């Protein structure tokens, strides 16, 4: 059985063997003949083999899951493989591939009379236009109107005329302040030199007008703007947590441990370091914010819990046109 297979194979080999093709005279070469470069060939082959070894190292490294610095070795294997591959290409390109530089002349310039004809063609095509000023005016009107139509959507970026919506917040007179844990904030729990985030009870916390930052200062240190008497019972102040510059959350409170020799208390926005003085109605003392943080008037109810005594002093959120104009 095995022998039979060998015989078939031998017969196929004999029959299938072709006679060598007849030798033709070699056609004339286009590229001039050069000497063979066995050393360069050897270098290229060696570099390619090295690339192969490194590339093969990648799956091998991948297989060892517990290898320390595995990621680094993976990168090294792949990187070296690419480096050897490009080195092989460089050597082959510079030593094995024949290169030749040829120059080609620019075509001669076009005929001058042809250009003259083109100019006349253009001038004579305008024969039908007799009232060019009227047409130019109409085209200008169309262009201006179209431009206006294109820039109209800019108005949607901010409300220039109706800013009332920005003062619409969940805070009403009597709304309780609750902490992040949902418990009501008590006036006697609010310590100095630290800060609290509070929300209106039962309202959507994601709403821009919801979060306030609550701090306590010695009542004697307060220099609130006129008309805000009684807004800060026991020196407890509440300001909108939304920075009036770009709408980030105010979550830095500069609280000096020993005031005589340290920077004074300040609410700071972490985005662009707008700095507000809580003692002076959150007046901007540093940074890009254009107006103070809106203040929420507070009151303490009979059971000692903090409640809002009304809405914010100003529109909440970043400033623009109409809102900035209302700055106090």
């Amino acid at each position, binding site marked *: 059985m095995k022998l039979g297979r060998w015989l078939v194979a031998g017969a196929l080999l004999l029959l299938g063997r072709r006679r060598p093709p007849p030798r033709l005279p070699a056609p004339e070469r286009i590229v001039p003949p050069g000497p063979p470069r066995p050393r360069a060939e050897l270098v290229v082959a060696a570099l390619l083999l090295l690339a192969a070894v490194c590339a093969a190292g990648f799956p091998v490294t991948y297989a060892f899951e517990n290898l320390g610095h595995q990621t680094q070795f993976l*990168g090294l294997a792949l990187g070296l493989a690419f480096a050897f591959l490009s080195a092989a290409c460089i050597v082959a390109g510079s030593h094995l591939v024949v290169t030749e530089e040829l120059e080609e002349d620019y075509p001669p310039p076009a005929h001058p009379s042809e250009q003259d004809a083109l100019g006349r063609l253009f001038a004579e095509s305008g024969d039908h236009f007799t009232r060019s000023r009227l047409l130019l005016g109409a085209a200008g009107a169309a262009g201006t109107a179209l431009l206006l139509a294109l820039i109209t959507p800019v108005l949607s970026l901010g409300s220039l005329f109706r800013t009332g919506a920005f003062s619409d917040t969940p805070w009403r007179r009597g709304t309780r302040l609750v*902490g992040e844990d949902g418990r009501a904030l008590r006036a006697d729990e609010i310590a100095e*030199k630290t800060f609290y985030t509070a929300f209106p009870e039962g309202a959507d916390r994601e709403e821009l007008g919801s979060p306030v930052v609550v701090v306590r200062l010695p009542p004697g240190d307060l220099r609130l703007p006129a008309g805000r008497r009684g807004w800060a019972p026991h020196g407890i102040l509440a300001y909108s947590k939304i920075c009036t510059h770009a709408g980030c959350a105010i*979550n830095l*409170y*500069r609280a000096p*441990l020993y005031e005589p020799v*340290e920077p004074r208390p300040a609410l700071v926005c*972490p985005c662009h370091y707008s700095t507000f003085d809580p003692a002076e109605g959150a007046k901007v003392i540093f940074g890009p914010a254009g107006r103070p943080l809106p203040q929420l008037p507070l009151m303490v109810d009979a059971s000692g819990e903090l409640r809002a005594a009304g809405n914010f002093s100003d529109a909440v959120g970043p400033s623009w046109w109409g809102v900035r104009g209302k700055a106090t």
Partner: protein
Amino acid sequence: MSVLAAALAFPVAAGRADVAEGQRLYSQDCASCHDVRGRAPALRGVGARAADFYLTTGYMPLGHPGEEPKRSRVRYDDRELRSLIDYIASLGPGPGIPQPQPERGNLAVGLRSFTQHCSGCHQVVGEGGYVPDSVAWPLKKASATQIAEAVRIGPYVMPHFTKRQISDRELDSVIRFVLDSRHPDNRGGWAIGNIGPVPEGLVSWLIAGSALVGVCLLIGKRNKA
């Protein structure tokens, strides 16, 4: 009986000697500011907690009052530290040195709490940052006890946090997160000091970029016009 009495009396006597040594150090290095109203806070009642924090971090003594304290070389050996802390604690009743147990904490809770309360100034992995007119120091060298102390004290312009804001249990988690963030799991590869995208940019643009230009110069050929 007398042996027991002696054994009991000895630490007391040693303690008193230490306090005396602490008093000597206090009048030598601290009193010039802390005993003067308006130059530095009085230390009566600050307790061992504040003394331990400021002395073991090298925040104190300061060069001059009003300077922002920063982590520096601790000027005292262990015995001097202990006696100075004991002396300051003896000035009036105050909080003792906290004993946090970060191993009890939960890393996920710590990350959330740190992000909420600390990262505004200290940045997400405690690399430190800026506040107008002061610096939020990196937390890379702070010990668990020092972090627990700082959170409750609020040194310099840092706010302090009450137990309602960060409970002791949550504080353990915060500390665990801070300690853990020092040894990140660099799954992505070469971390280059874990200082963020800057070294990566330097490597890719300066080193790799100039290497590529060098290779181009090496293999290219200048055309003679």
